[in-house]
């Protein structure tokens, strides 16, 4: 089973680095989708099945915190886990993110192992969610998730 991953960051370079990190982590990826801000991310979420979102906080037009709030208010989207990958690592930001249901928090600069560990943890839950939504997808094969 492969997962569709949405990477939201206004830096094209950072999106490339995150995609590379995820690809090298061994997580089975179906499709990568990219957004440069929260608005673009929401547009993608409206059209595409996404299993997990990796998002920056500090982005133009719509930042990651507003994206998280909008997702948490939406009946269909709230089950999609969102992981922040951000320089903004103050306790106040983390608490605000937790209040709105963030699934993980990675501080930049990051070690690839940190992203891998959080992603595996979060995708276990996403896998269960996906099976609940799409019971026909279960293959009976052994899965890491």
């Amino acid at each position, binding site marked *: 089973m492969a997962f569709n991953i949405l990477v939201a960051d206004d830096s094209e370079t950072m999106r490339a680095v995150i995609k590379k990190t995820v690809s090298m982590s061994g997580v089975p990826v179906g499709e990568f989708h990219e957004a440069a801000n929260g608005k673009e991310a929401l547009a993608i979420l409206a059209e595409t099945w996404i299993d997990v979102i990796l998002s920056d906080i*500090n982005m*133009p037009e719509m930042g990651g915190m507003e994206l998280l709030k909008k997702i948490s208010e939406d009946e269909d989207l709230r089950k999609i886990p969102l992981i922040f990958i951000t320089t903004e690592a103050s306790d106040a930001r983390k608490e605000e993110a937790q209040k709105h249901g963030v699934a993980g928090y990675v501080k930049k600069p990051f070690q690839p192992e940190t992203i891998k560990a959080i992603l595996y943890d979060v995708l276990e839950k996403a896998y269960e969610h996906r099976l609940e939504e799409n019971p026909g997808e279960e293959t009976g094969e052994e899965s890491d998730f």
Partner: protein
Amino acid sequence: MDENLRRVIFETFSEVFETMFFTFLEPLEEAPGKGELGCGRFIEATISYSGGSNGNFLFYFPWELAKNITVNFLGVDEDEVRDGQLKDTAAETANMAIGSLLGKLDPGGKASLAIPQARLLAEFSPETLFGETGLCMFGTEFGILWVVGTHA
């Protein structure tokens, strides 16, 4: 800029450069001689924050340093690197460095970072930075990283 802030800046920037770019910084106490300034092409990245604390930082990356950190960051060959990637990496470096610094200077998270900006400077002389009270210099294998910052 007081010595304690300079020490925190050095520790924070070192962590960012070592973790993300495998690049080691060495703080320079004195300005180098004219022959070692490394005039020429630079990338300037700027980022500010406001709220509980206010500050503004300008980073001046010599071309070779900008290219090296971009190569390390993206894992691409040197001849594949585009100017846009150099600017993007410089902006992201400023974002990571000052975001991490702010986490230490403003642990309550009252201040908010602005979006970092970067531009190419075809001909720049670091000598123009001499006299800036917030000037910090860091030696690297690929030239001197010049940073001018204010924090209040």
